[in-house]
Every structure is written in C-alpha cells, then in structure tokens.
C-alpha cells in the first residue's frame, strides 16, 4: 500500500493557510513595487554549477539529480545565485540599478521541519553603496508596519571588519577564501574556546585573538564594540574606512526612518557568500528573525567573470506568517466579495435561476451553487467550512414565485422573502 504521508519536511498547504501566505506575499510585492522593484521568476532546477559560487550551499547538501545526459542538476536552495545567473544572462549592460523581487519554493535538505518553503527576496544589482541595503530593509519594515507590528529591531554586522583585522594583523597577504573559511568555522564554533582554537590554528597572534574574542564577547553591546574598534583602528589604520562605513550605514538607516538598529558583531550568518554588510530583521521584541540579508558583491564575478555589486534580503513566507501570529497579530485578509452558497429545492428551479447566478458573478459576487441535493442543516455546515457570508435556500411558490430563506452567517440571523421572478431574485440577492 502506498504511504499517504508527504515526504519528511514537505508540507501540504490547506486553503486557510494558503490565503494568508498569498496575502502576505502580495503585501511584500506591492511594497517592493512602490520602490521600483520588478518581479521575476527562475526555474526550480538549476545546473549544479550555479551553487559552486557560494560555500553556503555545497552540492552534497542540495537536493541533486542527473538528467538523461548525466548532467548534474540541483533544486533551488537559495534565490541569490539563480538571480545572479538571470542578471548575467540578460542584463549585464542594462541601466543600473537592477531591482528584482522574487518569490518561489526553496529546498533545503538540512532543515529539520521545513525542507521546502516559500522564500520572498529582494535584490539590487549594480550599486556598491549601502543605500540599496537600506532601501530593501525599509521595504520589509514597511510591510511589518502595514501588518501591525509595533516596531522592528535590526541587527547588522560588517564582515569586512573581521577580514580587515585578520588581514592587517598578517605579515603575509592572506587569500580571501582562507578568511571566509575562518569566519565560517567561527560561526559554527561551540564556544569562545573553540573560536580561540580556530584563530590560533590560523596563525593569528594572541593580541589579535584577544581582540576578536573581545568583539564576540561584546555581542550587541554597541558602546563596547565601538571602543574596541576605535582601539583597533589606532593599531591598524587600514580598519578605519570599514568602521566609518559601518557607522554611516547606521546613520543611513536612521535617515530612512529605521530606528532600533544595532551593530552585532557576533552575527556571522551567511559567511559562505556574503562579502560585507549583513543584517537581520526582527520584530521589536522578537528573538526569531523575520528575514536576513547582506551584500554579495563577488558572486557575479565568480559566475560571469565580470564584477557587479549586489545585495539582497530574503524571508521565508511560512515563517513570517507564523511570526505574525506569534506576535498576536491577525492577518486581516482583504475583504473578498460577498460569498453566497445557493441551494435549490429541485433541478428545474435551479435551471430557471442559473442565469441569475452568472449575472451575480459578473457583478463580482462569489456564488457557489450547492450541487449536492441536501437539507438546510447540511448546506449550513458546508457553508461554514467555506466561510460563506450567506446561505440562500430557494423553493418554488405558487404560481411562478420563488420562496427564499436567507441565512446571514455573519450576523447569525435569518430572513424569508418571496420574489415573483428571477429578475427580482437578482435584486434581492444583490442587497442581501
């Protein structure tokens, strides 16, 4: 017998949840469009080569398969690399910036609960300043405001601060990939001792190790972080530009009305492909992030051979919906047209009235004719599962008139009415 369960980590989405997800998606797209973002789509299957440009999604972790000619393909595990491919294939010489919005299924075999989920992302190509980063954070914050969040918290980091400290301390130039590996290892280190061990094995001196540990220890204690960075810049003047950039980023966030933004140097998410500023958005007091992003300025060069700065942010739709509800907020779906379930006592009566149902649909109503001949109680039960607003039971009355029983499910009341012909029925249903 065939198992009727979904595959582990893959979920069906039932109507009530899907309506919420689609609504949240529409808010995100609408907000992005107001900032000039255009929606695009990429295939779910990509050449396995595509993720080789990032250390974050190695092929062995991705869902992968071969086509009939033996070419390796992977299921999309992140939108950024496919979007870089899309831009490389179509818009290398297009006027910049290129602002793209995207929503699609993402597959991650390593996730425990959700191995397929919908991700919304915003990407800006062709701008190296952080104004693009600020803009995409602002868009997400706009949507949060619209949904009713009481505020947001933004945590950001600049991976180049660590890169510059490590590089400045080295006597010999160090490869960028080597620094990326160190940061990646630190990100998954169990504790400070493990971090120290990684830094020691990388040949860094004890005073540099102490400085980096001090930074990690400070977490989101901003005055302390700036104190350490100030000290570091005096020791290594090469650090000064990145510190200035980090401070300016914060000021720019404020100029876009984004308050409650904090530098948190212990946040090393996305070290596999981010190249500078990174950020995460939370609700004001939430501990689970709503979305995260950062700059991936080198990905285009790895994929296409020509550099093009890029930045992006992504958020999981299912997770966003969960976090909205965890905040105690209600996702108020846009008011749909009035939804009526119409039941007829007899098929001849239905034939007579059906043109009126069509006319009502043309007028924008959601009209479902009850196809199962059944009593009113059963129709009512069915109507409640469909969240209908009205149930109308229509019977014949002598000689040609129609007897209506109108049940208002919103107000939990009922009414009766007698109409002389289908045209009059139309007028009554329009008003009910």
């Amino acid at each position, binding site marked *: 017998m*065939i*198992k*009727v369960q*979904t*595959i*582990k980590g*893959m979920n*069906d*989405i*039932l109507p009530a949840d*899907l*309506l919420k997800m689609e609504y949240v998606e529409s808010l995100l797209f609408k907000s992005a*469009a*107001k*900032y*000039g973002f*255009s*929606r*695009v*789509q990429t*295939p*779910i*299957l*990509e050449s396995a*080569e595509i993720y080789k440009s990032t250390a974050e999604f190695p092929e062995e972790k991705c*869902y992968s*398969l071969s*086509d*009939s000619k033996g070419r390796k*393909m992977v299921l999309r595990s992140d939108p950024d690399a496919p979007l870089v*491919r899309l831009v*490389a*294939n*179509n818009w290398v010489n297009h006027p910049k*910036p290129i602002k793209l919005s995207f929503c699609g299924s993402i*597959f991650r*075999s390593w996730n425990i609960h959700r191995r*397929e989920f919908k991700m919304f992302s915003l990407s800006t190509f062709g701008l190296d300043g952080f*104004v*693009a980063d600020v803009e995409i954070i602002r868009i997400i914050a*706009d949507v949060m405001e619209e949904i009713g969040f009481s505020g947001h918290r933004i945590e950001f980091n600049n991976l180049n601060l660590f890169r510059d400290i490590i590089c400045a301390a080295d006597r010999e130039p160090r490869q960028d990939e080597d620094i990326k590996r160190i940061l990646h290892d630190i990100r998954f280190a169990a504790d400070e001792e493990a971090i120290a061990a990684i830094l020691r094995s990388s040949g860094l001196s004890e005073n540099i190790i102490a400085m980096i540990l001090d930074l990690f220890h400070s977490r989101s204690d901003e005055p302390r972080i700036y104190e350490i960075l100030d000290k570091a810049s005096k020791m290594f003047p090469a650090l000064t530009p990145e510190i200035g950039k980090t401070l300016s980023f914060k000021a720019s966030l404020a*100029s*876009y009305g984004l308050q409650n933004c904090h530098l948190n140097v212990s946040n090393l998410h996305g070290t596999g492909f981010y190249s500078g500023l990174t950020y995460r958005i939370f609700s004001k007091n939430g501990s689970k992030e709503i979305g995260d992003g950062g700059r991936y300025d080198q990905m285009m060069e*790895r*994929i296409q*051979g020509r550099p093009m700065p890029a930045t992006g942010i992504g958020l999981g739709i299912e997770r966003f919906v969960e976090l909205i509800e965890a905040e105690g907020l209600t996702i108020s779906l846009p008011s*749909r*047209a009035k*939804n009526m379930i119409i039941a007829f006592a007899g*098929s001849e009566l239905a*034939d007579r009235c*059906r*043109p009126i149902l069509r006319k009502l*649909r043309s007028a924008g109503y*959601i*009209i479902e004719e009850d*196809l*199962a001949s059944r009593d009113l109680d059963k129709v009512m039960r*069915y109507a409640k599962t*469909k969240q209908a607003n009205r149930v109308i039971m229509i019977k014949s009355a002598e000689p040609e008139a129609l007897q209506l029983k109108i049940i208002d499910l919103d107000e939990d009341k009922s009414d009766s009415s007698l109409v002389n012909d289908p045209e009059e029925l139309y007028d009554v249903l329009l008003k009910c």
Partner: protein
Amino acid sequence: MSTHNLLSGFQDFLPESMLARNNLVSVVRGCYEKFGFLPQDTPCLERTELLTGKYGDNEKMIYSFEDHGGRRVSLRYDLTVPLTRFINMYINNIVFPYRRYQVGLSWRADKPGKGRFREFMQMDADIIGDESVLADVEVLTLMASAMEALGVRSTIRFNCRQILDSLVEMCQLDSETSVSLMRSIDKFDKIGQAGVLAELAGIGFSPGIIDKVGDYLKITGTNAEVLQGLTRLLGEAGAFQTGIALLSSITDLLAVQSHSLVDFEIDPTIARGLDYYTGLIFETRFVENPEFGSVCSGGRYDRLLKRPNGEFLPAVGLSIGIDRLLAAMKSVGKAPVFKTTTQVFIANFDEKLSSEYLKLAGELRQAGVAVEIFSKQSKIAKQLDIANKKYIPLVVLVGPDEISLSQVLLKDMRAGVQITVQRDQFVPAVLERLGLNNHPLAV
C-alpha cells in the same frame, strides 16, 4: 570564468513576461474564486511510489532521485496525482463536495519544443465528491467564464467516454486495440480524418472498422444534429444510453446560459488520451487560431480518487497550462502586455538632496504610487534615458533651484511635456498625470 547557462527546457521570467503571466493567473484565479473554489498547495516533491504506475509510457519523463535519507523522491508530474494523496491525508478535514484550485509548477523531462517546457505552470480546478451532471456543467461554465474574462473568443468542445466506449463496442475491439483507436482519434485536430483513417489502416484495423470510424468522425453540425447522428450510428451499443443522456443533459443545462464569447459544441473527435477519464471530456480552443490546439482541457475522473476504505470519490476538473495559454493568447494578439509597474522615477541632481528625494518618494508611496529613486548623481540626460528604457511614465526633477522656489518639475515621458508644480501640490499633480483622478489626493 565559468558559464552558467539556463538548463534546457527551463525558462527565467523577466519582469515583462512575469507581469503577463501574473495577470493571467490573477484573472483565472478570480474566476475560480467566483465559483466557490478555494486554493490549496502541495509540495513539489512527492514519494516516487505515489507517481509510478499512473502515467503509462510517460513515466520515464518523471524527474526522480534519492534524497539525503535514501528515499526515492520525484518532482510532481502534474497536479492531479498528488491530489490523490492529499485527499487521503485530509479526508477527515474536508467537507464534500470539495471545490479546490491549485496554481503550481510541474516538471516533465520531455523533449523541449516551441511552447513546451520541462517546467511549466498549471492552474487546476476540481470538484471532488460530486457525481452530478451539474458539477460537470459548473466546470464547463467555469471554463467559459475564464475565457470570457480573458476576452478571447473560444469554443469548448466536449464529448464523453461512454460515447467512445460505444464506438469501441460497435467495432468489437478488445481493450488493447481500443487504446490504439483512441490515440488515433485524439490526433484528429492535427492530422484530420484522412490521417486518422490512414493511421488505423497502418496499424492493421479492418476496412469495416475503418468505415465505421470514418462514419463516426463525419458526424458534425449543431449539437442537436450531432446527438441525432450519434444515435443513428451507435444507438444499439450498451453504453450508449448513458452517454447520450449525459450529453443531452449537459447541452440542456448549458442552453439556459448565454456566453457572448464562448460556444459549446459536442464534438465526437474529442478523445483525451489519459486513461483516467470516466465521463465528460472537453477541450478548449481559440476561434481565431484553432490550429494552436487546446489551451485548456479536463473531464470527469470518478475512479482515480479513493476514500481510505477503498470507495471511489467522483471528481470532475479542468486544467489550464498557463505558459501555453499565454503563448496562445500571443498568437491571437490578446496577450496582456505590461512593461513596468513603476510609475515615477525621481532623478538625482545632487546626492546632497537625497533626504528631499526620500521625502518626495515617501509621500508618493504613501499615496500608493510606485516610485524609483535614481540613487547616483549623474547627467540628467542619462537618467532620462534610463527612465525611458524602463518605460517609466513620469520623471520628477528636483534640483537646488526647484527647492529654493518650492517647486517640482514633472516630465511626462509619454507625451514629452514638462510641467512645473508647487511643492504642496506635488502628490495630487502626479496622481492626475498618472490618471489616478479618482484618488482622494488627486487635484
């Protein structure tokens, strides 16, 4: 440098095609919802065992692989077979009849061709748990409503399995040869009557059978004439009475409705290849380009879905291939055309004025206008060229002079005219220029 090409048979959707596709989805979805259908979604990946044995020879086109837990998994081939699992899983949560629709991608490792992709989007709508003729008519009416909403003159051609069974019975064919007969009839639109008969002769059908099939394929005319023709030819077959009663009922129920752009025709040549259809079958094509073929099809499948106790759940549904529909609409010049959703471009005279640009953009966005600020200071002519290439209709020009005079320059790229407005009249003026005159802030 490495090259990263798009996989063969797959497509990216750039903004213009994305906007067109979204528009079609939105129009069709609106129709589905007006008929009381609700959305549902299923994962892209299913256990391979669910899909095997469902698609005959086409099974080799399923993308399958082993996941990290050693399970054989497959990308869904269509939206119907996953529905069998869905119904089983949620049988206790569903109130029947269940009207559902699904918009989703499917994958087939088919040979790519014009308008045929390995990844494609479908929009299915089904009524499950309802064996009534009325449900058949609702699905046909829904199809007609969708075509009307899209503004395309169409013909919905329908037939039923029992009529085809009657032909098989009259020709005294076994199940294997009857499949060959159905496959040949299914090609009628492409190869015509002579082609179908020649193919049957090539397969080895006897001249008597070929004559009978020839007579069957010749039945045309009004719906009443077709019903009469079928009765004359197949009236003695055992399955015929059920079939003719169904077609007559459907025709009668459709007759009370009027559709300005859609005709319903009984067409004996509609055979539909899929084995799982058990009653009504239908296809839709555009009047202006019938050669393009069917853009939407469906039918009744009463023996595919089951309750956990093994009892069959009757169902009827339709499926629209969105990419194919879009290609068909293009072929008759009816495809929606959109270039951009951005309405205003704010040019950047001086990066020092960024906060003023942000303020202008914020006011417009608050009023529901889509705005792009050009984030780098550069020559205005270059910026206007960019706005033009992006098809953005209105450009806002604000430099130090305008700020000192509390003015804003609006350049309408469509008309090539430039107007000066006072800063406090800026938002209403933009709304008026964009034709959003009913907006509360418009002048």
